[in-house]
């Protein structure tokens, strides 16, 4: 019996040139493949030495970012970045986004490199973010990215799709980050392994909030996270007219989240699915607050923090580090005054990029310290010492926490 297609099946089918079913292996055309400073040197090496293919298939379909350790923090990272620049020049790759332009995923979306209806690959696991603008975005390792650079293609196992329906409106003090943390707490960090996740009822959230949702489906093990836009509103969102999930599409599983019933959520060490309502962790001492990353470093996130911190002071013992996800976001937050209110509250700012998200620079943690972060992972040792603790939550919760110097409920400050 034939049935309709999910978004993942439609996009993969078009990129493969034939209809596909979950479980099929498909060789697909890649709309854009990207890599970042920490991985690109390996990609280049694998392309040349393993595949022995000297040229990328199409320089227009390759993007390179210097964001993971930007600017370089030691000679080894500086050499890696120099290699990326040489490669871009030699291959005629004009999509090179160097130090200070921002986090790869933000730029992939903002600069139109990830396009609706295409299969887009990144050498970084949070490439699922592109589902927010209608692309099938997925993360792969250096060898797969090298192959995509060299051939313009990749192979995929067509995933089963899971449906997540959002109902109601987010209450004051609650953000899309809380919704996705709640879902991860419910399903566990392997709750969607090998699957695509399709969100319904997300079209009226802000664009930034939709990126947060899709980005963090990676923490469910998902292959892609997609927003299902209603067919009658595709034009309004600038999406191709075929990019809707068929009403009779097949889903392996369905979940519903009542946004109206959510409280601010916090993920406690050491796994992202260790999620509770903020009430359960209020009062835990925090040394550093990090506002940034591809998950929550956008303008609305800076605005959310500024709403709470404007005219107030961060607790004296707290280091609050803000890293806007891109140069544009940095400039806008300067222009609209939100950044100055955070600086006046005692925060500091670093170069747009990944910052301390992976514990390499700009805010590495010492043993015994605790960080409250708006990022997406709290694995032991991710931000520095394996003896440090990482808590994850929304920008609002991060701001309230910075204020008190211990985990705090943002609803008390709105």
């Amino acid at each position, binding site marked *: 019996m034939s049935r309709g297609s999910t978004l993942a099946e439609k996009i993969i089918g078009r990129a493969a040139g034939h209809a596909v079913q979950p479980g099929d292996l498909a060789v697909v055309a890649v709309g854009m493949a990207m890599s970042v400073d920490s*991985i690109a040197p390996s990609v280049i090496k694998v392309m040349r030495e393993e595949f022995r293919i000297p040229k990328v298939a199409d320089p227009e379909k390759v993007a390179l970012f210097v964001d993971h350790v930007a600017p370089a923090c030691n000679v080894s990272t500086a050499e890696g970045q120099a290699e990326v620049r040489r490669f871009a020049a030699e291959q005629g790759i004009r999509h090179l986004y160097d130090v200070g332009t921002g986090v790869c995923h933000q730029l992939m979306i903002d600069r139109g490199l990830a396009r609706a209806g295409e299969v887009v690959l990144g050498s970084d696991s949070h490439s699922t973010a592109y589902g927010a603008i209608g692309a099938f975005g997925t993360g792969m390792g250096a060898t797969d990215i090298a192959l995509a650079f060299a051939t313009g293609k990749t192979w995929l196992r067509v995933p089963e799709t899971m449906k997540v329906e959002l109902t109601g409106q987010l209450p004051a003090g609650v953000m899309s980050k809380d919704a996705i943390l709640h879902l991860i707490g419910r399903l566990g960090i*392997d709750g969607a392994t090998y699957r695509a996740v399709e969100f319904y009822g997300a079209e009226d959230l802000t664009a930034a909030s939709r990126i947060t949702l899709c980005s963090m489906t990676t923490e469910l093990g998902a292959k892609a996270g997609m927003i299902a836009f209603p067919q009658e509103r595709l034009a309004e969102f600038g999406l191709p007219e075929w990019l809707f999930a068929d009403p009779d599409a097949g889903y392996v599983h369905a979940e519903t989240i009542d946004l109206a019933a959510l409280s601010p959520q916090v993920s406690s060490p050491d796994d992202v699915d260790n999620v509770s309502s903020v009430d359960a962790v209020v009062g835990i001492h925090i040394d550093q607050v990090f506002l940034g990353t591809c998950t929550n470093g956008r303008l609305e996130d800076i605005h959310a923090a500024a709403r709470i911190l404007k005219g107030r002071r961060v607790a004296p013992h707290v280091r609050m580090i803000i890293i806007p996800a891109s140069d544009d976001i940095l400039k806008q937050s300067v222009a609209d005054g939100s950044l100055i209110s955070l600086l006046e509250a005692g925060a500091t700012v670093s170069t747009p990029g990944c910052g301390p998200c992976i514990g390499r620079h700009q805010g590495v943690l010492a043993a015994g310290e605790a960080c409250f972060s708006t990022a997406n992972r709290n694995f*032991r040792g991710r931000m520095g010492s394996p003896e440090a603790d990482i808590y994850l939550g929304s920008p609002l919760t991060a701001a309230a926490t910075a204020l008190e110097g211990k985990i705090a409920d943002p609803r008390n400050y709105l």
Partner: protein
Amino acid sequence: MARVWKFGDDIDTDQIVPGRYSPYMTSDADLPKYAFIEFRPEFPKEVRPGDVIVAEDNFGCGSSREYAPLALKRCGIAAIVANSFARIFFRNAINLGIPLFEDPAAVQALNDGDVVELDAAAGRITVGGRTIELRPQPRFVQDILAAGTIADYIRDHGRFPGE
């Protein structure tokens, strides 16, 4: 003769090789020294070529870093048997030619420190005189592993598996 290194659920790529020890931050040649450096510090010192990793659910979750499986390959890990694998780790390991087996029954039968004999090509592992037939891998995985790595496969066949 090889030994089993057994792990639990949700072993993430930061546990396999913390980001701070990546070849980007340090030197590529040192990579095998950093396998499980913080999570299980005796591992890089005591692991021997041919050893087998056994793990429960969702092995390799987290980032897309290929140097996680690469570190294990360079330590000489001959196969990984788990209840399940995280998807990027699965691709990366297969691409690098590390045999992976999803087989909960075998995971249950194998314990940390067991001395085993593995025949990865035949999908067979022997422990304490008992031979376990591992669950067969999907066809395309067998094809890649038969060639060696995905690079070997593409060079030999001039096309993708299944194309």
